[in-house]
């Protein structure tokens, strides 16, 4: 089971339309990615809440077919 980087990016963008998303494939196995997501909608939210917003956008794939996504979230400067 694996996910394509483009699929992850699309899901995050669908869920967070204003976000800039950068995905790095860590292992080439479709299972280990790092993602940096910057969105105005994160402003004022805790890191946990920000990450939960990204996980919600991933519609339950996180922890399922997507085993590892090292996540970094920020608000625009």
């Amino acid at each position, binding site marked *: 089971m694996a996910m394509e980087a483009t699929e992850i990016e699309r899901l995050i963008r669908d869920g967070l339309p204003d976000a800039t998303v950068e995905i790095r494939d860590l292992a080439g196995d479709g299972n280990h990615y790092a993602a940096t997501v910057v969105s105005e909608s994160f402003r004022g939210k805790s*890191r*946990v809440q920000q*990450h*939960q917003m990204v996980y919600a956008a991933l519609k339950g794939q*996180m*922890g*399922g077919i997507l085993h590892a996504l*090292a*996540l970094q979230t920020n608000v625009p400067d």
Partner: protein
Amino acid sequence: MSIHDFIDSQVKSNDVVVFMKGTPQFPMCGFSGQVAHIFNLLGVDYKGINVLDSDEIRQGIKEYTNWPTIPQVFVKGEFVGGCDIVREMYQSGELQTLLEEKGVVVMGRATA
């Protein structure tokens, strides 16, 4: 006791709790290992709960926090985050500050 009540009682009766894959001595997953390593560096005692021992706990903790992955870290009953967040907080010193603010004994003041 329901799984929710079990989790609730564990996080409220231990200063620091880590729901992890494996044990503090033998973490069984890289991410759980990173969190164990960070707390070892800080010299912080924590209760490790091995989710591999029970699918009920493994699923229950994800529902308890609405967080899809393991490990999950609690300090004084409050969900702090998973591996990414705890590592980020450790590197910025925020984790050390949080622990001290909550009155958790931090033995070694390790520098990042």
